């Protein structure tokens, strides 16, 4: 299994280690619920070094990303980042990514660990002579610090109070112990905070500093629970090569008016015709957890109307929540449905996926 610059640290802290997409990663430290609550109430940190980091430069870099990604990179000023999608010719999602504009013609792109090889191949197949590509994944590490107390903690760590002035998706390049570091006001938990990209050699020092300040070490289990609570998609669950941003409710990062990009015609057609299914949030008053692949039924009948993509016992609500696709006629907020969990049926209510914590 592949190791991040922090894997030895996780092992020495006796985290439970699992194989995640070929990487040796901590799934939990003290416990998934405790870690998730630390992020909601204070500050927690996650090793996300397994994600891929690639850089594009050269006079054709902007045009290159404009043609392969769904969001509008021209709208980015240097020092701003955006959530975006890599789309295929059928309008499906190759990956969901973050694009950082470093200068007029230089970009850093963060890609999912499980898609890294697929994405890099896709990028290389489309490179033009005026674009150069560098893979920074193994020479860098990435730590997410998340929670209501995270911004101040990171600003203290960086010794740079102006970090607090950054808006969401803005970033700042600084130095830490003599090596360069990027602080971006992004995250995957629904809380405020930063994602920090730093040199691999500095990762353990920064991790230890954060621990000393009182930041809770968290594993991928808590990260998954938090992102479900926040209604964020995970590749392989809510989105994949055969899923359109229209049905995944990701059209806010698809800019059809920016000009053509891979799959834009297919997306436009589906948008016009309407998608037969839609991603929704589901809340229940039960503790038993819907999991990926469980079927959703019309209330009181055997008519299957959808399928669960992710589900978890919400550490915050202390009740089960889920996301899933349902046929559009059952996607209205307030619709009551049933989820089949092994030999049981539970009642759940459709809510917007952004309201899983508040409905």
């Amino acid at each position, binding site marked *: 299994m592949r190791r991040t610059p922090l894997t030895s640290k996780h092992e020495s802290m006796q985290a*439970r280690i699992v194989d995640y997409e070929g990487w040796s990663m901590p*799934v*939990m430290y003290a*416990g*998934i*619920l*405790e870690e998730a609550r630390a992020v909601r109430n204070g500050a927690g940190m996650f090793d996300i070094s397994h994600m891929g980091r690639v850089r594009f430069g050269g006079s054709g870099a902007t045009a290159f990303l404009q043609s392969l990604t769904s969001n509008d990179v021209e709208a980015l000023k240097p020092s701003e980042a955006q959530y975006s999608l890599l789309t295929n010719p059928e309008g499906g999602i190759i990956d969901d990514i973050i694009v950082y504009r470093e200068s007029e013609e230089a970009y850093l792109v963060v890609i999912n660990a499980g898609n890294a090889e697929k994405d890099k191949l896709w990028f290389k197949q489309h490179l033009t002579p005026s674009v150069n590509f560098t893979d920074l994944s193994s020479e860098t590490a990435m730590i997410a610090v998340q929670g209501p107390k995270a911004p101040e903690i990171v600003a203290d760590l960086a010794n740079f109070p102006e970090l607090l002035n950054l808006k969401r998706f803005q970033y700042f390049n600084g130095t830490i112990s003599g090596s360069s570091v990027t602080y971006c006001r992004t995250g995957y938990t629904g809380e405020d905070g930063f994602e920090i990209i730093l040199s691999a050699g500095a990762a353990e020092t920064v991790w230890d500093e954060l621990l000393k300040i009182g930041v809770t070490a968290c594993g991928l*289990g808590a990260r998954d*629970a938090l992102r479900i609570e926040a209604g964020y998609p995970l590749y392989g669950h809510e989105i994949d090569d055969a899923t359109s941003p229209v049905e995944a409710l990701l059209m806010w990062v698809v800019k059809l008016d920016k000009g053509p990009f891979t799959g834009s015609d297919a997306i436009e057609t589906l948008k016009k015709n309407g998608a037969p299914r839609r991603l929704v949030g589901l809340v229940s008053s*039960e*503790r*038993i*957890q819907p999991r990926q692949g469980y079927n959703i039924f019309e209330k009181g009948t055997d008519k299957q109307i959808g399928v669960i993509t992710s589900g*978890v*016992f919400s550490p915050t609500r202390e009740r089960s929540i889920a996301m899933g696709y349902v046929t559009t006629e059952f996607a209205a907020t307030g619709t009551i449905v049933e989820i089949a969990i*092994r030999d049981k049926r539970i009642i759940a209510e459709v809510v917007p996926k952004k309201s899983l914590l508040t409905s």
Partner: protein
Amino acid sequence: MAKVPEDLKYSKTHEWVRVNGKIATVGITDHAQSELGDIVYLDLPEAGRILKIEDQFGEVESVKAVSELYSPLSGEVVESNTGIADKTETVNEDPFEKGWLVKIRMSDSSELDTLLGAAEYKSFADEGGH
């Protein structure tokens, strides 16, 4: 290290048994709760259900996994610990006392001899027995 109380009997499916006359109290071991992590849901049988040894009698679900519960003994369920249905963390915090799961009126106490003693269970669990 997981606790393994000396005075209990154990199954290879990680249930413990405490005998008091004809009544056997059953729960899951400290090793089992630790492997599962945060327990969030318990499915326990109704009183009156007749169980044969090794019957599945319920399930215990953590955030990450679902695990089936198997009866270590034959008999009739006389009580389930429904009081912890909404406080399932009790099983993580106190698996051998407040986190008990069912009480069974044994129909064949000779089955107790098929269960493991504390030392046997400890070496079974340490070897990663599942």
